[in-house]
């Protein structure tokens, strides 16, 4: 076995893990901010609004993430007007393109998860908020969003883990996150088991932390739902 390849390059793996975490955290935060209003729009009584959101979620859930990444990274670069625009300094960056893709993809899944969470809220809770004289915005902020998040927590936990694993695709657009580092070592040392096994262990560790975190959140915030059953 050639584990020296891994031990000699721990610095590269550490840098890769930092980039993996950056991609995951930033993408999830932005996707969350996108998904919360879209979840309300998805459940809107106005068919045009809910339909528009459904088109977006269907588009991004119905196509592979790798294809989306290539379309955004390589595809956008083919438009001359875009390269001449003020957006190009950002869109020319593989990091920005990767985050944009992950945000749009995760945003689509998270929108549907949160929309389902909203639909699961008993009508009585909404009516109680109205009876207390809450404005729609107050009701959303104080009642609906917390209740939605609580109900969506288990599914959202899965989405967070999926997002962490999906960041491995960023290596295809020159970013040296954990998988990119492993691939680089494979190409330089002509071995595959050890570099990818080390990458798998890093992902496993990060996943374990996330799973633990979501278990704590569920125990703290969603316990009343289990007691109700």
């Amino acid at each position, binding site marked *: 076995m050639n584990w020296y390849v891994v031990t000699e390059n721990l610095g590269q793996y550490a840098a890769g893990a930092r980039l993996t975490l950056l991609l995951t955290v930033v993408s999830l935060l932005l996707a969350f901010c996108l998904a919360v209003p879209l979840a309300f729009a998805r459940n809107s009584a106005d068919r045009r609004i809910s339909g528009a959101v459904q088109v977006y979620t269907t588009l991004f859930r119905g196509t592979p993430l790798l294809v989306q990444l290539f379309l955004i990274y*390589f595809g956008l*670069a083919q438009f001359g007007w875009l390269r001449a625009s003020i957006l*190009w300094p950002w869109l*020319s960056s*593989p990091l920005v393109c990767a985050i944009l893709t992950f945000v749009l993809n995760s945003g689509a899944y998270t929108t549907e998860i949160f929309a389902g969470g909203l639909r699961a809220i008993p009508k009585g809770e909404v009516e109680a908020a109205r009876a207390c004289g809450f404005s729609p915005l107050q009701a959303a902020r104080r009642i609906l969003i917390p209740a939605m998040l609580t109900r969506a927590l288990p599914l959202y936990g899965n989405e967070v883990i999926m997002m962490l694993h999906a960041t491995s695709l960023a290596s295809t657009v020159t970013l040296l996150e954990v998988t990119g580092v492993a691939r680089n070592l494979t*190409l330089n040392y*002509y071995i595959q088991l050890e570099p990818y096994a080390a990458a798998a262990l890093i992902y496993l560790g990060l996943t374990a932390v996330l799973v633990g975190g979501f278990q704590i959140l569920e125990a703290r915030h969603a316990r009343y739902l289990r007691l109700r059953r």
Partner: protein
Amino acid sequence: MKRLSACLAAMVALAVPAHAETLRIATDATFPPFESLDADGKLVGYDIDLMTAVCKAAALACDIQPAAWDGMIPGLMQGKYDALISQLTVTDQRRKIIAFSDIYSHPIFRFVARKDSGIDISPEGLAGKTIAVQTGTPMDKFVTAEFPKAKIKRYDSGSATYLDLTGGRADVTISYEAQIRYSFLKSPEGADYALTGPRYTGEDSPELGEGVAIALNKRDPELVKAVNAGLAKIREDGTLAALNKTYFGD
């Protein structure tokens, strides 16, 4: 005891390479005009024709299959493939782990940039500039060693480097001169681009290797001999010269 002897005999028989069966030959089909997939998904190119001719000359049954660049050399070492043909340059590092046939060509490496870029191909001229290169290739090692102040972007395939060159994310890319001249510059996307800077060979840098050869498994010296015999035969009968003329006009 008889059963044990039979098992041992079978293991020995399996351990000794027998070339009655079809040889599995891998190629990274993203590098025209050397190896690529045509509209029907069929492997085409100089290396494909050369390997087919070598197999015919050496009376070997060969199956050439597309493979991912990063898995090719490990795959050869693990016995997933019997040979690799993909413009593989012979380097000291590679010689330690795999065998090579006789060298069949000596490539020239060149940079390509926009015609109006005015880029000076030198360590100072490329300082702060972005070089697009296929990862894990001799060109990758060469630019890393020779242009330390440049920003190097590494890609999984040879063709992806051109996408970012034309997309404006890279200032230059480096590849085999023949590959740039007979593939990229002939495409509509390559109209505004030109070869630039010096012509580099293995003599300029050990990173660029001694030349191009067919990669084989060190544990199979018989196959190395057979492939070399096939190469010698196509050299003698003019097949190799005809291939060079067909693809590169020389």
